[in-house]
């Protein structure tokens, strides 16, 4: 009789598959389902403390661990780079707590967890892009009160957002918003686009893949399902501008139509290292 309890407990393992216990994973999956059903709506969830500090991808990590199954292949990037220190850390955690296969090739991955970028190449149906989000609330700059923010979203009242964009334009001649550009999703909710560059916003529009945004510290999950409109907020006569620098091309692969980052004194390189390496191999 006494031995039965030990048997029920099974072999002592300090951490379970996917780190989180099954109830937690189920709860996170439910939040993701709600997020998919109401595109752009920030679903509050009981965010768990993860084995990375808050602000280091704890939200994205919870999403990935909650949806990953044994057959999944996971790619993790930070700034577009598979070798980024945070990407390395998260990839090791995901692999060691689940045993799933990892890859650097965006085409092979079923789940791509990312900080600050959307992979350069097109993503296909069935892939999930998991974005790590530091600040999920697009209204924070124009309204500090959380109760008020929720009400503005509920009423679809983005007037202050428009006014702030207009004032920005009048004062500076351009809209100065850099990354995390506010976008209207499915004609209903305005979201903070992680902080991905403006360059990446069009890749979320009518995409083939599912994008899930996880904000662990702020305990919110939101999503953009495939084939959903994602429109950057701008005015009819002011075209949305992505990052471009005249004459800039990747010194490694020659790409011009890519998100390039500057290496002081050496020129420009693609931020998506996997995409850049594949282009070099192909040429």
């Amino acid at each position, binding site marked *: 009789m006494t031995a039965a309890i030990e048997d029920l407990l099974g072999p002592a393992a300090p951490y379970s598959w996917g780190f989180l216990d099954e109830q937690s994973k189920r709860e996170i999956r439910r939040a993701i389902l709600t997020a998919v059903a109401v595109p752009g709506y920030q679903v509050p969830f009981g965010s768990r403390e993860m084995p990375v500090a808050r602000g280091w991808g704890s939200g994205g990590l919870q999403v990935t661990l909650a949806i990953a199954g044994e057959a999944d292949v996971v790619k993790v990037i930070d700034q577009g780079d598979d070798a980024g220190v945070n990407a390395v850390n998260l990839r090791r955690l995901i692999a060691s707590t689940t045993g799933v296969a990892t890859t650097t090739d965006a085409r092979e991955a079923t789940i791509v967890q990312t900080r600050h970028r959307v992979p350069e190449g097109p993503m296909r149906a069935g892939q999930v892009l998991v974005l790590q989000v530091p600040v999920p609330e697009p209204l924070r700059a124009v309204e500090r009160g959380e109760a008020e923010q929720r009400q503005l979203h509920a009423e679809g009242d983005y007037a202050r957002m428009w006014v702030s964009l207009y004032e920005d334009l009048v004062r500076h001649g351009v809209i100065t918003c850099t990354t995390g550009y506010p976008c209207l999703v499915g004609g209903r909710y305005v979201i903070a686009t992680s902080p991905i560059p403006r360059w990446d916003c069009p890749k979320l529009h009518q995409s083939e893949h599912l994008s899930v945004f996880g904000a662990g510290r702020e305990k919110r999950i939101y999503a953009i399902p495939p084939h959903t409109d994602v429109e950057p907020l701008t005015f009819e006569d002011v075209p949305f501008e992505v990052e471009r*620098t005249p004459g800039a091309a990747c010194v490694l692969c020659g790409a011009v139509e890519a998100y390039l980052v500057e290496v002081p004194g050496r020129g420009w390189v693609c931020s998506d290292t996997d995409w850049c390496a594949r282009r070099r191999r192909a040429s």
Partner: protein
Amino acid sequence: MGYAAVKGGLEAVLAAEDLVRRLRVTDGSRWLEDDQLGGRLRLAVDRVQGEGGLWAPELAAAAIRQAEGDLIEAAQLVRSYRSTLPRLGYTPPVDADEIRVARRVVPAYRTPPGPQLLGRTLDYTGRLIDFSSEAAQRAAVRSNGPTAAVTGQNGDAQHPRRLLHLLRERDLLVERGDHSDPDPFDITRRPVTVPAPRSARLAVLALGETGALVNLWYQGIRGPNAYAHELTLGEVRTGTLPVRVTHPRTGRPVTVGRVGVTEIESIDDIRDGDPARFDAGYGLVLGHNERKAIAMAALDVAIERDRGRTPLEQSVLQTCDGLDASGFLEHLKLPHYVTFRSMIERKEAVRAAGERA
């Protein structure tokens, strides 16, 4: 395919990790054992348990050793471990009157109901570094023998009556019982939004970082939006409370252990409320941590009094978590070159627009 071979980043991360482990493990001094940490650095262990939200002294001790004494980092280790534990059920509530006090002071009365029991405290001791050797300190303790406990004996010493009972009997206390909030809000399962039910507020404060709570309280004293209230403490208690679970067969509660707690009741005026009565704030934290519990009780009543007129509730509830704040602060060390490139591009765009105009 398997484990993606990523050059550069992985090697650097492994080397950094190895450096930390190697230097920590191979230090010339003796290994710090759990019992040493618990026995000699008990307040650090208690603080980690409180901010980690898990009563597990050995685990907290191990975390402090692994974190090289960084208590926030240790709390992070404990809390992320807590995430892996399935939530199998809730314990039935325990009446805080069941506390077995190890220390109890009542600043509000000279001779309160029950004892003034100073207990294990340095509050009234000069802060002088003891330069004598371990041997000399041990010898001094041995030769002096224990000092007899001195308590103003007045009723049951271990389970004293609460000062608030006395105030309630004299109808000096406003009734703040909220029957709309019967079940405690589980902040580990639901995110807290403001305005929050009081049970959520108390749970957030109980998990808060000691320094953050002290600062948030002090903001109210000397900050630009000071509401400058000095409150009176009705109870300062440390001791242990039983933890019970409902027996699956008999349905009766069974005591399965005890946790250390610090409990505070603060007494305050009610501004633009009932001038003939007091209000009370409540603080209860895991472990022996009086500073945190007092700040908690003070902030509890401050938020109640504020009633959403100022952003106080949001500022306290959304900023007092040590892991949130420290983690987000430290994430600034991560690469930000994708975002920074975008920022430079906009600076240049503003300049170009200025030149066109």
